[in-house]
């Protein structure tokens, strides 16, 4: 397997982004997450914060319409720009890690793709969100539910199969069982086994 593309889908608070960063480091390949936001922000001439608001967000159905693959929704167009970006990167033969962006489906035709979904127990996720975002337990739970709902709607709008459905990914793993570092270890072993094929 000469090209390696690691797609990481994740529940909010599961440590998915940190795991993706860890994998990128271990395999010495770039990670596309924040970069996808700045790239789009530069292209459309707005601040990364404004794109962040609309990033991985579903469109507002009542004020959006799609015609022959074209959409008036800014959310949809930002999503399409990001899909194009990762597809072009994949076509160039580059190896990389990509977080979210329906990449497990959008890049499924590339033989070098390893798709992963990181989930977690609610208690562990709340604890983690409380630490990282410095919020109380109630707010942490609300934030998790809100963010996951948004990711789910975004994913299921752009892709036919359901977000988090294990049949969509090569491996789904609960990071609460082994903790972040050991989850990275296990995933590294799995990916190395795949690349040796």
């Amino acid at each position, binding site marked *: 397997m000469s090209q390696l593309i690691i797609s990481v889908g994740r529940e909010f608070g599961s440590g998915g982004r940190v795991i993706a960063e860890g994998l990128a480091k271990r395999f010495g390949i770039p990670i596309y997450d924040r970069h996808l936001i700045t790239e789009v922000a530069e292209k459309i001439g707005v601040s990364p914060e404004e794109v962040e608001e609309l990033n991985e967000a579903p469109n507002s159905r009542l004020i*959006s319409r799609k*015609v*022959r693959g074209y959409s*008036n929704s*800014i959310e949809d167009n930002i999503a399409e*720009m990001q899909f194009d970006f990762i597809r072009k990167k994949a076509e160039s033969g580059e190896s990389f890690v990509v977080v979210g962006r329906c990449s497990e489906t959008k890049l499924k035709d590339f033989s070098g793709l390893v798709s992963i979904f990181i989930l977690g127990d609610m208690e562990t996720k709340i604890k983690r969100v409380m630490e990282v975002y410095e919020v109380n337990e109630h707010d942490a739970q609300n934030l998790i539910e809100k963010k996951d709902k948004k990711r789910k709607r975004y994913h299921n709008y752009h892709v036919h199969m359901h977000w988090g459905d294990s049949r969509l990914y090569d491996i789904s793993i609960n990071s609460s069982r082994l903790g972040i570092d050991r989850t990275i270890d296990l995933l590294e072993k799995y990916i190395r086994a795949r690349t040796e094929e």
Partner: protein
Amino acid sequence: MLAAQIFAVVIFIAMFLLIVWDKIERHYITLGCGLLTLVVVFGICMRSGKAIWNTLAIKCFAAKDFWYQVSESESKGINWATIVFIAGMMIMVEGMAKAGFFRWLCMKIAYLVKCRTIPVFITFMIMSAVLSMFIDSITVIMFLAAVTVELSQLLKFNPIPMILSEIFCANLGGSATMCGDPPNIIVGTSMGFSFFDFLLNTGAVAGICLIVCVIFFYLVFRKELISENAQPIDMSKLPKPSEAITDKKGFIFSSIIFGIAVVLLVTHSITHLTVASIGTFIAIITLIANAKDALGLLKKVDYKTLLFFIGLFVVVCGLEETGILQYIADFISDISGGNIMLMVAIILWMSAIASAFVDNIPFAATMVPIIQSLAPIVIASGADPNTLAWALSIGTDVGGSATPIGASANVVGTSVAAKNGYPISWGRYCKKLAPATVIVLAISTAYLFVRYL
């Protein structure tokens, strides 16, 4: 009958909600709802094989009137003439696009005005309106917006005002002819109008409104279009129009075929060829001219839209056969109190407001039988019986311009702009285009009152 009426209304409302929900592809929605109408409304509730047969209208293909029409006639059931015509035009447009016709035309016009921003702005608006009179506005805007973005990057101007103006003019141009916008084809084929009937009635007001709009958009956008950093234009650095042509032979053929289509449409009241036979003929000669890639062209036809139409016509027939549309017609008649002016204003403005938020095709298909039911009241008042048809066409075609989701051209134009780094929000869109829509509707109302009542 009551059960049939209830089911017909429930199916129709469910269809509309599912289209707005946008989770299932819309052709599946209309086909599914159409099937339900045939089985539940006509089959189970009405037990009427005749209603099913009339709705499917398959026998129309064998009728001479479908291909060659000497006297005006109205059609019922699935409007196959609309479907055959749109399919034929889709094949022709695919052939033209493949040869590079549209990109060449845009670049050629930009060159003719020496790529100066304001002249490009004005000529592109006019070109958008004129092309949309014959070709679907989606294709027109797809190419025009892409070339506008390309020119804006080379000439350093903001493309958003130009794209917004092009969208508006495409919708306005579409209202001018029978083949310009799907609602007009539905109205025209259902009520037996010719290309010239539209041109002399909706076309006349569209022409007046185009002049007003060009002035309006020039006044509201001129400051945004003139860049302070504008450099003298070096024409040698710009892409040549001829570079847009991908296949010279195909380009010549597609230009000739387009010319033939225009001539046939303009003269169809003289030749008596119906839009169905024109669509079929144009499709056949396009496929013969592109014999090597005929299969490729056929594959590119937007079958989903054609299937959407078929299902939609069946659902609307459900409302018509069960008498629901007659109730709506009676309601409009009651609230207008027999006042024709009020009736015309209601049809025009209600069509426009509805089309600004929902797809204008289902709306027009639903309204056609209603205005046919209202025609006797108009005739009795001594007014032109077709006034309501023109009000419906103008309302549905122009009203769609008011919001980014009102018409297909709006969605395509704003999407092309966003993908190239120029997102257009609802606020940005409506701030200029909603007032322009109101202006055109006001002019149209006055036009209908003065000319026909």
